[in-house]
């Protein structure tokens, strides 16, 4: 099964990376003196630093391998995750939501829920986020070990423990600051380590047009086959893409998931915080030229019997995740292989560091300080942040071993996001834009939204009802079910929150100043020339998004 062999120079490059990230953690420790330094990187980052970290926190190697594999399976439709499934939400966060998040000086998303609604909504979201983060972190760790074992023949336990302990080392030393530093290094390693696959693929196959011409229509377009689900690789209708992915899942993740939003909180001022997701959106738009293009190259090569390219198989089933490692093995000589593997390792570890740094903040401020020790001092919270980092990594390792004994939990990752993030987006949207939404409306709407999403998932999983009730389509796919389930969970949470708010006690308007649109003075950009305003860059980002969609329609 082993696909890639490493030479001594490849090992040296990998070891340099490990030494480098640990060295950075050590170097930054002397600058980490307070809770604000540890949990929010001192709030002094530029929009470029925060923006690249914002993007990189989401750019795990599991995503790189998985999305390249998904492109092999579903075709170009996977690009929707990077374009309509990300850009509008990132721009919306920067333009409309960030002023409320950043100006209220909160340390976490649950912290906003406490100010806008009440303590119980904050604790509910804090606990659900902490559990989700550790679960995802453990599953990521398991996936990393599985990939390294499958493609490099590395020992399962050693690769998992070495990378987990390295992450624990540098996050414990300097918290979010070292997580952000290593995320940015990972960003450049991924571009330099993996973009060359696409370049060499284009050189081998002739041009981008020639690659697309070798694929069936169901695989090489973005929208033209979306009116009939049976005619596209993902078996999904355009309404499912727009409502489920483009609206609920995307906005739910990019505007409320603390893992990514935490990076914007580390920005030095409001303009930098608003520019964080907007700058990130440009790089997000470019990512398909690594992942999607590599997947399309893999399809084109495997359709050509003379190329000698064929995905690996496990027990008769095609291993789609093998597409990217096999392309690395095909094109990369010694040295470049080390760079490619380091890029994947960096992706895994930066994703892990992102999860752990978000977990330690939510645990320390939204669970420990909020419920267990309300009078804790700043130095005690700093200690708690470091201790919870160690505990978080240990729990992640436990989850990884759990995932090893039940490999099918890998399939639940996308579902986990639709349980937690999709309804939370309805709560946030209403809370930020409608002043009369009440604390009880928000709390019960969120509870029922999360439970309904979970029940819909259970109902389909155990055949309590037919999936077509959710997807409104005669052809079925897991991806389409995820999109539609997220939409319904959002709608249920939205409707119930509004309904309960009609009958329950509202917060006085004066308590909501700075937290809700309409009750907050908004003159953030008045002193800036137009070309320096976030809205200018947001408009360019949306125009580019439209152009890309039309280009590959």
């Amino acid at each position: 099964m082993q696909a890639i062999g490493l030479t001594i120079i490849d090992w040296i490059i990998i070891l340099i990376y490990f030494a480098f990230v640990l060295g950075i953690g050590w170097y930054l420790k002397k600058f980490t003196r307070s809770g604000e330094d540890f949990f929010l990187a001192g709030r002094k980052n530029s929009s470029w630093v925060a923006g690249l970290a914002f993007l990189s926190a989401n750019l795990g190697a599991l995503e790189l391998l998985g999305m390249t594999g998904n492109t092999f399976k579903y075709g170009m439709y996977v690009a929707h995750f990077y374009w309509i499934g990300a850009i509008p939400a990132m721009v919306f966060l920067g333009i409309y939501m960030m002023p409320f998040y950043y100006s209220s000086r909160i340390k976490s998303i649950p912290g906003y829920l406490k100010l806008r609604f009440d303590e119980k909504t904050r604790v509910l979201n804090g606990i659900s986020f902490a559990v989700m983060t550790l679960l995802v972190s453990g599953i990521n760790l398991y996936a990393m070990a599985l990939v390294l074992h499958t493609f490099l023949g590395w020992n399962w336990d050693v690769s998992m423990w070495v990378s987990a302990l390295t992450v624990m080392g540098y996050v414990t030393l300097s918290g979010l600051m070292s997580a952000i530093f290593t995320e940015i290094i990972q960003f450049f390693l991924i571009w330099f380590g993996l973009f060359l696959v696409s370049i060499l693929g284009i050189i081998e196959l002739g041009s981008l047009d020639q690659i697309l011409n070798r694929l069936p229509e169901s695989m090489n377009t973005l929208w033209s086959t979306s009116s009939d689900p049976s005619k596209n690789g993902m078996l999904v209708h355009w309404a499912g893409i727009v409502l489920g992915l483009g609206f609920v899942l995307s906005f739910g993740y990019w505007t409320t998931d603390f893992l990514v939003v935490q990076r914007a909180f580390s920005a030095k001022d409001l303009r930098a915080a608003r520019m964080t997701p907007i700058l990130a959106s440009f790089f997000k738009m470019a990512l398909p030229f690594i992942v999607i293009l590599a997947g399309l190259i893999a399809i084109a090569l495997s359709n050509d019997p003379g190329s000698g390219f064929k995905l690996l198989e496990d027990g008769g089933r095609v291993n789609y995740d093998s597409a990217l490692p096999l392309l690395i093995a095909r094109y990369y000589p010694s040295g470049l292989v080390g760079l490619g593997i380091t890029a994947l390792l960096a992706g895994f570890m930066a994703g892990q560091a992102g999860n752990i740094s978000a977990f330690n903040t939510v645990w320390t401020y939204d669970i420990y300080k909020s419920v267990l020790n309300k009078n804790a001092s700043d130095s005690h919270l700093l200690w708690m942040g470091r201790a919870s980092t160690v505990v978080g990594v240990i729990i992640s390792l436990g989850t990884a071993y759990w995932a090893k004994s039940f490999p099918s939990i890998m399939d639940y990752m996308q579902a986990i996001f639709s349980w937690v993030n999709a309804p939370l987006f309805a709560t946030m949207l209403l809370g930020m834009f409608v002043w009369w939404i009440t604390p009880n409306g928000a709390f019960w709407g969120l509870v029922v939204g999360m439970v309904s999403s979970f029940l819909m998932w259970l109902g389909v999983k155990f055949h309590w009802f037919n999936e077509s009730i959710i997807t409104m389509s005669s052809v079925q796919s897991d991806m389409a079910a995820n999109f539609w389930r997220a939409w319904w969970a959002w709608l249920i949470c939205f409707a119930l929150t509004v309904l309960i708010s009609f009958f329950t006690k509202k917060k006085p308007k004066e308590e909501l100043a700075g937290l809700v649109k309409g009750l907050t003075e908004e003159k953030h950009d008045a002193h800036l020339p137009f070309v320096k305003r976030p809205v200018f860059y947001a408009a360019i980002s949306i125009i580019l998004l439209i152009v890309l969609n039309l280009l590959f329609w």
Partner: protein
Amino acid sequence: MKPIWYFVGLIMIVIGSLIFLTGIYLLLNPPAEKTVLSEIHPNLWWGIIMVLFGGIMFLKTRKQIV
């Protein structure tokens, strides 16, 4: 403290140099088992691009403190 771009520059120079030097070695001692497109020597030009990129970042930030 040193800005992040300083560290990005540093690691790009180190890894880019190693890849470039490996490219020279492979040019002088071609391996028996060749990768696809090995005739265009990707190690050489990709290594140089990495060193140039890293060098610019490193030189522009080596005296900065943030």
